[in-house]
């Protein structure tokens, strides 16, 4: 088994954190190997941000994702840039809040207002955790409780309740759109 994820959007949307949580859930709570890498500009907000996760039963030599099986896009720019690279037959998860149009692609396209949902829960800053819940729910790559544990271990103290709500909202959304 080898599954490659790419999470792409703008700096500040928390996609590197989301990727870390996904990889940590696999690395620390399952038998799988996992690596996580990223590319980003020198800015801490704005600019483009891309984070990759590979989860595999085998040793992972080359850590960069070439053609993701699962792609999450949270800006129009990221959508236009990365959708053409999706593995045929793969899955594209789109944050409808910011992405208007998705280029034609040989993949299952699933739309959800990720950032809008986070806003509704209280703060848009937890959109990345909604996304983690969504990806875990849609792919079943790691058990939900393992993913939740990884979320809670890596969010700032005092924000656990909100992040838990965000994660569970993502899991629920996966059931609706999956």
């Amino acid at each position, binding site marked *: 088994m080898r599954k490659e994820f790419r999470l792409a959007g703008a700096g500040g949307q928390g996609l590197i954190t989301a990727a870390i949580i996904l990889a940590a859930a696999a*690395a620390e709570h399952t038998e799988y190997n996992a690596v996580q890498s990223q590319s980003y500009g020198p800015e801490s907000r704005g600019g483009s941000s891309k984070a990759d996760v590979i989860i595999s039963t085998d040793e992972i030599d080359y850590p960069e994702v070439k053609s993701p099986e699962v792609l999450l896009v949270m800006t129009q720019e990221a959508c236009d840039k990365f959708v053409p690279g999706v593995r045929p037959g793969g899955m594209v998860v789109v944050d409808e809040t910011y992405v208007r149009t998705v280029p034609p692609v040989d993949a299952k396209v699933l739309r959800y207002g990720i950032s809008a949902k986070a806003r509704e829960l209280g703060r848009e800053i937890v959109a990345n955790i909604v996304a983690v819940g969504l990806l875990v729910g849609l792919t079943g790559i790691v058990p939900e409780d393992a993913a939740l544990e990884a979320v809670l271990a890596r969010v700032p103290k005092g924000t656990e309740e909100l992040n838990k709500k965000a994660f569970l909202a993502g899991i629920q959304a996966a059931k609706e759109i999956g």
Partner: protein
Amino acid sequence: MKEGKPRLLLGNEACVEGAIAAGLKFFAGYPITPSTEIAELCAQYLPQVGGKFIQMEDEIASMAAVCGASLAGVKSMTATSGPGFSLKQENIGFAVQAEIPCVVVDVQRVGPSTGMPTSAAQGDVMQSRWGTHGDHEIVVLSPSSVLEAYTLTVTAFNIAEELRTPVILLMDEMVGHLREKVILPDRSELMVKARPKPDLPPGQYKPYADYGDPAKVAPLAAFGEGYRFHVTGLTHGEDGFPTNNPDVGARQIKRISEKIASRKKDLPQPEELFTDDAEVFVFAFGGTARSAKKAVRDARAMGLKAGLIRAITVWPFLEEPLLRAKAKKPKAVIVPEMNLGQIILPVKRVMGDACPVIGINKVGGRYIEPDEILDAIKEAILGGSAS
């Protein structure tokens, strides 16, 4: 810190945990991408183990502070990237000359100058060897994985303390910023060498004693423990005082080189994969060695006899596995590196006319992909018609 449990760890984080496990007690630095997490985590961890962290005004001062702390008897480290590595060179030379143990981490980024701060490169290979002036040997180690960032940092301290020399940990962004599943070894399994103490009383102690055996290095007395001696960047005699005596000077210069050159067998030896029957060898180090390993495995799966030599000690250059490869009359040696051709130079020197030595070079921040190396392997074994 939890040993024994699987963790998702960042390369830079593993380096810091390795340093703490090796007994790091002092870090001075000026944070710079992509090494910043090393300073951040040292600031967090060092106070917990009775150590000190100082953010200095610049890289020059931080290297000077590292030298001072080490002379005061504690294991010391700094971390930087290309632009800061350039600034540290003068005081790295001072540490070489004054024989001050310390570890300098360079997480390489694209250069020259401030280059591309968040992008991967391996352009400091030659700088790590010859960044500071004058004849000298220096130990440079390069990890390829997050686990190795941990273990090699421990090794770097051991070598630094034993040989009284700066050791460079040459990382790249690909490893420094990679998170990977690791299970850290139990502390009880780690070999951590304490700094040897002088066995002679003050007055008889010679801080730069020449024992006639280059492998034997004088112990370093800690300032504040009753020993007083002179420390200088000037060429000096056994007592540490400057000299213009050509014979004394020549002896000192040769001694500090030979103490490293004579210990090549004690440094981390290259990793070899499928080299026994290989027709084509890939020679790689650092993050790029991950691409090379994948390419060699893919080649084997296709029935192509490729082998990997992965340098872990980059300098001094360990020729042994290449000499063995040369004796097998290989079809080619392929050298992928994220620069315009640096480690290929000693590889060419060793291989001579024995076979083509082919560089795969990339700059600008993109990784060298396994398929690019695989194509070169195919071409070397099957000829031009392969692609």
